[in-house]
Each structure stands twice: as structure tokens, then as C-alpha cells.
């Protein structure tokens, strides 16, 4: 492992870190250089992005539009009552 090149292990760290902060320019450059050459690290990066998108998604799963579940009127009333009770407690 030469010191001017990142290993896959180092790149995996840097890819993760780059999702949480702006990397220093030279680190970013070394990371991108490695990513350009290494298809497995590119896959790794894609995988992290997939997980990120999946967790951020507010989509309902496709295919259950026809069986769209609704809260029963009873459940709605129960929840409103619970909220009312909680509010009343807070106002005391």
C-alpha cells in the first residue's frame, strides 16, 4: 500500500465520512481517484446511498395501493382522546 494512494478500506471510511462532512480537498481527491479505478468501492458507495435513500423515503410500498389500509373511526377517536388527555395534563 503506497502512502499516496488510499486502500479500499481507507476509501470505505472516507466514503462514509463524506456523507457526514465535507472532506478536506486532498482526501476528496484521493477518494475520487480510487473510486474511478475501483468498481467494488463504487458499488460500496452505491450501497450506502441506497440505504440513505431508503431511510429518507416517505414512499409507501408499491403494490398495496389497492389494499390501502385506513384507521378505523374507533381508532381515530381513541387517538384524539389520548391527545386531549395528554394536553389536559400539560395544561394543569
Amino acid at each position, binding site marked *: 500500500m503506497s502512502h499516496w494512494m488510499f486502500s479500499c*478500506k481507507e476509501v470505505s471510511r472516507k466514503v462514509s465520512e463524506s456523507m457526514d462532512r465535507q472532506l478536506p480537498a486532498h482526501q476528496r481527491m484521493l477518494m475520487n481517484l480510487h473510486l474511478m479505478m475501483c468498481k467494488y468501492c463504487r458499488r*460500496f458507495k452505491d*450501497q*450506502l446511498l441506497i440505504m440513505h435513500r431508503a*431511510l429518507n423515503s416517505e414512499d409507501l*410500498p408499491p403494490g398495496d395501493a389497492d389494499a390501502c*389500509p385506513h384507521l378505523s373511526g374507533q381508532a381515530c377517536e381513541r387517538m384524539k382522546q389520548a*391527545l386531549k388527555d395528554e394536553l389536559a395534563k400539560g395544561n394543569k
Partner: protein
Amino acid sequence: MGKKQPGAEHRLNSPESWVDQYGDFLYHFAVSRVKDPSLAEDLVQETFLAALGARKNFQGRSAVRTWLIAILKHKIVDSIRKRVRESTSDRVESIADAAAGDSADVEFTGKGGWRIRPARWAANPLETYRQKEFMDVLYRCLGQLPQRLAKAFLLREIDGLSTEEICKELNISATNSWVMLYRARMWLRQCLEKRWVKPEE
């Protein structure tokens, strides 16, 4: 031109109206993740109550619905975690133990190359998450992620907190937070790679 949209402020002041406005959506979201209608109902109610308690902290950085969904996602992960705990098998334990150390040591050779090369998850990677099974496995894996890592990871990915905010919340250093987030991602990735059967293969 038309009537002014009621602002977030206004909506926050009438929590009961949340039930009418967001109840069905949250319920549908919860059912699709936990499969059990009565548990889903409980989680939605818990979400509303938690939101009521936290509404002073809601800074309107996101839409009310987004805010409620974020709370619900935490509740879903917590409930899966509880279920996993109750039916803990040795296999789960061993995964959790492995993650307690540095899972990167397992993933890489001494020279820093991939020991097992990352698989290609989909032809169009960014569409992968739309597949239902993927979400199921992801949430199950999240429920098994060691708690400390899960906390940091969910604050970052679901609540979108910055590293600084996470450090304050968990009382850790910035470097520490990056390491934790890295471990959480490595662990989850590994879990998904093991459990998720890629449809096209």
C-alpha cells in the same frame, strides 16, 4: 391569490387535527413496515403522543408530515428491536458481537482490500429501495444494529442531524461520531448483503 395555507404553527396548535390529516398515511406506512395492524395502530398513537411532547422543539425545518414520519420510523425500529430481543437466537447474538468490534477488520484483508467484494444490488441502484423486500430487510437489520450505533445512525439518517448535533446529543467527539456512523453503515451493509436476496440474480 387563493386562501393562505395554514402555517405549520397553526397546525401544531391543534394536535387533534393531526389524526384526521395524517392518521391514515402514518397508519399505512406503519402497517407496511410492521405487518401487524394492531401494533401499527399503537405505533401511530405513540407517534402522535411523542410529537405532542416534542412539538416545542419542532422548528419547522421540515413539513409536519415529514416530522411525524421521522418519529414513526424511530418507533418502528424500536418495536422491531424489541421483537428481535424477545426471539434472540444465537445467530443474532453473534452478529451483534461481531459488530461490537470493528467490522471493517472482518471485511478487509491485511492489505486493505475487500475480503468479500461488494455485490451489485441492482441495475439501477437508486431504485433499489423501492422494492418492498428491501425495506423489510433493511428495517429488520436496523432492529438488530447494536443500540449505540443505531442511535447515532438514526439521528443522522432519519432526523438529518448534523455531526455537531449528534455529538452534543450523545456526548461524543466528532471523530468518534464519524467512526460510529461508519461502523453502523458497514454493519448494515453486511447485514443487507447477507439477508437480501437480489431479485435479478
